[in-house]
């Protein structure tokens, strides 16, 4: 279709021979993860299932942050505020406006997209640490604003998410409940499955973005703005839209958080939340699609499962222990859990021998291998 295609006669070798082969290991691993994710709520007590949904909320928001910080290279310490805006949007839309739950979630995403674009505009001129500081200000400001406008937000005591419901005493505003239309599932189990589905959708969408023209432009802008621009990428547009999309994902995460707790409170959206998202991204592995999910689970396991089991005297030291673990992790695996895994795979592939690497694909070629040298020396005429 192009001159380039027309001028070449022989078919080119498959660029991705590895992934085209039936990846049995991957299928087995994915099946196990699938079975665990589906079976988990059936075997867990209700409070645990609600904690799981909380992890999903973090995973969604962290995935948004990863798109911005991991792939596009813009640091945000303000995603806790966007998470909060998403949560409050859902709460107010349902309680005060009477919007149906799922439309409210979508609208929360739209609202946060707009806010994200608004933050992204000044971010064009400020980079790196300075951008981190500006977003830090946003994160610090958000709980204060919520308390300031208490007539709308309920101030420090928070808001319950209610809807008019039929009761014995007539129609009364009561906390909303997501109940299964199929009956067989308990509310906590239903909630788990519904939000798991939403989380999967968000991660599939993220993966689609990352593995596309848009995803390449994100990374190109991160690594080399000049190269991006010369290749026809509108750098400013990419940066602003990424901020918007990232913020929308944080907002959807916040919406999940709000619906899970059926109430919102400014103390849930402090600067610490922004830091948790960064932790999830870094622990899981920045610039990998699944990293933030792994990071969110790791964080959740520590906070909700391990930390309550610690002896009474150690409880106040939980943040210190978390900090210590983070330092150790960053020393052992600077690329997060996913980065560490990739390194293991690459090492194993390298150990399998240079013979197998002759096809030129695969992680073994991270190191200079003879085949790339010989490519260089060979005549282009050959």
């Amino acid at each position, binding site marked *: 279709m192009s001159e380039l295609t027309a001028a070449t006669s022989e078919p080119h070798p498959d660029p991705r021979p590895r992934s085209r082969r039936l990846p049995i290991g991957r299928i087995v691993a994915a099946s196990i993860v699938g079975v665990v994710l589906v079976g988990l709520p059936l075997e867990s007590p209700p409070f645990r299932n609600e904690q799981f949904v909380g992890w999903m909320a973090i995973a969604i928001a962290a995935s948004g942050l990863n798109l911005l910080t991991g792939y596009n290279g813009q640091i945000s310490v303000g995603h806790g505020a966007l998470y909060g805006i998403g949560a409050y949007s859902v709460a107010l839309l349902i309680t005060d406006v009477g919007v149906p739950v799922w439309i409210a979630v979508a609208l929360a995403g739209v609202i946060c997209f707009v806010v994200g674009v608004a933050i992204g505009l000044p971010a064009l001129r400020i980079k790196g640490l300075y951008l981190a500081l500006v977003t830090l200000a946003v994160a610090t400001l958000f709980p204060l604003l919520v308390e300031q406008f208490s007539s709308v937000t309920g101030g420090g005591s928070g808001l319950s998410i209610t809807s008019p419901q039929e009761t014995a005493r007539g129609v009364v505003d009561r906390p909303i409940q997501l109940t299964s239309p199929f009956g067989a599932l308990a509310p906590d189990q239903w909630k788990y499955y519904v939000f798991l589905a939403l989380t999967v959708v968000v991660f599939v969408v993220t993966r689609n973005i990352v593995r*596309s023209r848009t995803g390449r432009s994100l990374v190109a802008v991160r690594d080399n703005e000049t*190269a991006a621009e010369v290749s026809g990428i509108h750098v400013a547009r990419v940066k602003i839209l990424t901020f918007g999309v990232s913020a929308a994902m944080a907002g959807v995460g916040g919406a999940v958080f709000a619906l899970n707790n059926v109430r919102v409170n400014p103390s849930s959206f402090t600067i610490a939340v922004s830091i948790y998202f960064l932790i999830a991204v870094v622990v899981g592995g920045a610039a990998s699609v699944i990293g933030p999910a792994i990071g969110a689970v790791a964080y959740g396991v520590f906070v909700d499962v391990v930390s309550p089991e610690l002896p009474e005297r150690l409880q106040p030291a939980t943040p210190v222990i978390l900090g210590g673990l983070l330092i150790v992790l960053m020393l052992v695996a600077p690329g997060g859990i996913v980065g560490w895994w990739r390194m293991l795979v690459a090492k194993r592939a390298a150990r399998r021998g240079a013979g197998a690497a002759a096809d030129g694909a695969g992680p073994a070629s991270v190191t200079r291998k003879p085949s790339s040298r010989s490519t260089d020396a060979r005549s282009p005429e050959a």
Partner: protein
Amino acid sequence: MRRERQDGERVGVLEVTDVGVRFGGVIALDSLSFSIDDGQICALIGPNGAGKTTLFNVVSRIYQPSSGRVRFDGHDLLAVAPHRIAELGIGRTFQNLALVPGLSVLDNVMVGGHARSRGGFWAAALRLPPVPSQERALRATAMDALERLSLAQIATSPCAGLPYGTLKRIELARALVGRPRLLMLDEPASGLTHGEVDELGELIRRLRDELELTVLLVEHHMSMVMAISDRVVVMDLGSKIAEGTPAQVREDPRVIAAYLGAPA
């Protein structure tokens, strides 16, 4: 010599007219004028600091000149946004490499096709109909470009850690995927061995013929410049000091003076 194109009977693909670039008090380009005809290989030579790369950066809209005009294929380039240059049909490589280390070789080359494809966040997120087929087409075009430059075997490797000469060829492949009419190469032969330089010269000619390119070349390897160029523009200290066929330029006393120093 300077004004010989004012007769207006032939209009070049790229026309640079009286372009001046100043960085503070430093004059990087001093009312430089030249034009390239369709299908020519034109070399821009001159000592270091002559302003060759500055001119490249003016044409690719990285620098805004303080005076002058640049026209490409009938468009006033100085009125075009930097990211739309590729769409107009101008591709380039960089003297100091401008690849994306975080992407694989293939993805780097596919970035070069950005202006030739469509689809933003929403289309990509939902994999709307044009996206997967466009992606396949772009991948095929990128693989063809890699094959043309004998890079197909390393398509899925990360760029980081590859040898310098290979990286230069990846950049060339990226520029080709944008299907340019004008290809600007900034010192493509630097860091190559003698044999590789000869091959490169051969390759540039072949690309020009097969892809119907116009080539603007900055290069210090004189043997290659003289062997493949249709025209040579010689610059010194921001100005053009000579212009003509390789044979004419080689004999020009001003060129000899600029390169070897003026006789005492």
